[in-house]
């Protein structure tokens, strides 16, 4: 079964702080995604990538950067964190050849105070 591991699982930072969320998948999937989940909004796509060095803009990209360093690793960067970025963040991956099921990690809960 596909495995997507996120770290940290919980993070608290101050407004204006610098935060990096990490994600690793071990199934050689081409596609990786970062979503945020908020009550009343469901899951919203921030950024995604179809391979190392590639980055695609999602639906809610403002205030976020992302980098795909390898096939396995995808990072989400908040360089000037704001309270509006307090959320539950999910990383996910999928196989380009089938591009059907998307596998999610367990999430990172970020609080910006």
């Amino acid at each position, binding site marked *: 079964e596909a495995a997507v591991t996120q770290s940290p699982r919980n993070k608290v930072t101050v407004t204006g702080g610098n935060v990096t969320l990490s994600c690793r998948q071990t199934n050689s999937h081409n596609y990786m995604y970062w979503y945020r989940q908020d009550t009343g909004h469901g899951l919203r796509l921030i950024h995604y990538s179809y391979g190392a060095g590639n980055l695609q803009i999602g639906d809610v990209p403002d205030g976020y950067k992302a980098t795909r360093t390898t096939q396995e690793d995808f990072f989400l960067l908040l360089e000037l964190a704001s309270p509006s970025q307090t959320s539950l963040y*999910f990383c996910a991956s999928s196989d380009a050849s089938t591009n059907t099921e998307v596998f999610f990690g367990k999430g990172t809960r970020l609080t910006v105070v």
Partner: protein
Amino acid sequence: QQQVRQSPQSLTVWEGETAILNCSYEDSTFNYFPWYQQFPGEGPALLISIRSVSDKKEDGRFTIFFNKREKKLSLHITDSQPGDSATYFCAARGSGYNKLTFGKGTVLLVSP
């Protein structure tokens, strides 16, 4: 602009009843519709999916009914169990696209 809408926001049914979760979409190019199930503290996980060439997909107690003309679909959970209590997301994807658009979710509570 919300492309995938779900209703109701929350639903409570008794154990053994059929729960019906609704979903509608706007983009006529959407052709793949997965439903994801999420338990507290976990990420969403694929439950069942349907492609627009079909009007029904069944997997055990879970059935998707799809109406392409009306751009609507529904998830029926028969003989609901307390273990089915979770948040259910309807999602959609179009041909040639590689990202899913999610609805806001329906929180299902099954009371014993």
